[in-house]
């Protein structure tokens, strides 16, 4: 508790005499600083994170410079893996016919990024109104909580299984085709659903959209109703209220949600195999394939480039929205 830094208020019986210094000293002794020592509290988790998060990530950087021997790697310093990464199709190689054609790894990273951005766009488009509905339109707390839980539950179930679940939906005789035929929208089954970009994006959106609803919901729920009321009283239209108040105040949640799904989508590899039939590769699958053939430096370089791309993406998002201010 804070110590009194001013004289006590003179009571009914007049001003109290200040306690003698030795009494003050004594009360200090009994008021000990509370809590367990901080170093004990943080030590186990810090050690764990250092050993199993920091060291593995740093070792990726180190391994990317090592020499691949065909069955493993040996210590050394070489840029072979980097050269392979960039040059395979003749990128930066003036003597090559396909000069300036990006290597297969660079273009894989690029296509991973492309899918990520498309999926992020749709997640935001679909997820924002849901968060808005839960935070602004549903007034009763009980309903708010249970509807929010309905949206969150898929996050706690296996995402692999949610990817598998798209197979009966998308196939030639899948539910979507049946529906389209039944509604007479098409007269024969469309084939562009399963093992296609369309189906892939749709499955990814379904899997990741719940992750963006949460953060947006929390930042919307924090908005004080009085501010909105004040704006309404001063004659602001709904659109103005959204543009001037709700939109800006929900930006931190949007940024956190976007960053969250951005890094997960960039590292995505299983959904591509299940729903896209492995027709395309993401950087994640490239990394695992190189690991599978024991070319560790090559997979390390791919991983590093993925990390680099992710960092750039996160920085760009943070540039637009300063979330540090809001946390």
């Amino acid at each position: 508790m804070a110590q009194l830094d001013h004289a006590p208020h003179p009571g009914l019986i007049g001003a109290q005499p200040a306690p003698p210094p030795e009494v003050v000293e004594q009360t200090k002794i009994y008021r000990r600083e509370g809590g367990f020592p901080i170093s004990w509290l943080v030590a186990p988790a810090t050690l764990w994170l250092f050993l199993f998060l920091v060291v593995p990530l740093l070792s990726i950087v180190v391994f990317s410079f090592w020499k691949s021997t065909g069955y493993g790697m040996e210590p050394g310093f070489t840029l072979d893996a980097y050269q392979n990464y960039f040059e395979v199709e003749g990128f930066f190689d003036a003597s090559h016919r396909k000069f300036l054609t990006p290597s297969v790894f660079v273009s894989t990273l690029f296509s991973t990024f492309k899918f990520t951005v498309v999926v992020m766009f749709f997640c935001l488009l679909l997820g924002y109104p849901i968060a808005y509905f839960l935070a602004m339109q549903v007034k009763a707390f009980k309903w708010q909580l249970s509807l929010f839980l309905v949206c969150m539950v898929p996050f706690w179930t296996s995402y692999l299984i949610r990817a598998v679940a798209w197979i009966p939906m998308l196939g030639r005789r899948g539910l979507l085709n049946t529906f389209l035929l039944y509604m007479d929208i098409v007269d024969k089954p469309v084939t562009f659903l399963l093992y296609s970009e369309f189906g892939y994006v749709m499955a990814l959106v379904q899997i990741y959209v719940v992750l963006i609803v949460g953060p947006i919901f929390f930042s919307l729920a924090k908005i004080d109703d009085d501010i909105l009321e004040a704006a309404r009283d001063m004659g602001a239209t709904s659109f103005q209220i959204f543009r001037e108040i709700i939109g800006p105040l929900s930006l931190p949640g949007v940024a956190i949600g976007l960053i969250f799904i951005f890094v997960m989508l960039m590292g995505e590899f299983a959904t591509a195999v299940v729903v896209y039939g492995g027709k395309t590769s993401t950087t994640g699958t490239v990394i695992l394939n190189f690991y599978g053939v024991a070319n560790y430096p090559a997979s390390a370089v791919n991983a590093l480039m993925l990390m680099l791309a992710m960092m750039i993406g996160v920085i760009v998002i943070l540039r637009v929205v300063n979330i540090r201010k809001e946390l």
Partner: protein
Amino acid sequence: MAKWTPERRKKLWIKSGYSVYFLVFVLFIYGPMFAMFVLSFQGRRGGTSFPMRGTSLYWWGKLIEPSTVGDMQGALLRSLILALIVMVITAVFSTMLAMAFRKKFYGAGFLFYTVMAGLMVPGVLLSLGMATLMQFLGISPHWWSSALAVHVVWTLPFGFLVMMAVFNRFDERLEEAARDMGASEWTVFKEVTFPLILPGVVAAGLFGFTLSYDEFARTTLLAGEFNTLPLDINASMTQRIRPTLFALGTASTIFSLGMIGVFLGIYSILYRRAR
């Protein structure tokens, strides 16, 4: 009865519009799982898509036969044990960390971002770094060692954020009162702090359990010779996809939902008691 002013009517329209959209959204995120559920009862000759050719428990039966999906029961057991260990470690670590973060200390900002990095680093990268490092050091991976290590890195930030929120609303004067009455630090924690934060600890444990139980990417390279359940599911997908997979997926999802229900039940009981 309130008067039906145009404004009120408009509000109602907007609200029902949102409600309809919400229903469509729920259909979108649950529909595929429901289709999978229905198809797991596919008749013996049926395939992996509609129409149903009769209904049967044939594919569910196949699930219990040991030969078809490899070592399903073993994988389930391993996933459960792993999830329980991760749950305990997550709950303990996140409580300790959040307690430390109540005060300012040197390196707090750095530690905060390191914990959060566990959430930001994709599973593939962590899996790769860990597996390559272990390969180099000559340590063989096991589901109870290396997989456990990276699972906790993934679940800790969630538990930590939950516990941070709990301690944000925690009245420290209760602890001080106990201290002033001469309780030891350990007694203060046992008698005052812990009972009050217990609902939060359960919530942190929920994240630990469910996220570990379903984790696939971080386990891929680190499970060693025995599979966990998600790895087993993935392995059975590389073969021809049969309705058995749907039965397995449904069973696993029902189990996850059951666990969430159990956790939420415990949470609400404890929460009411802590009030």
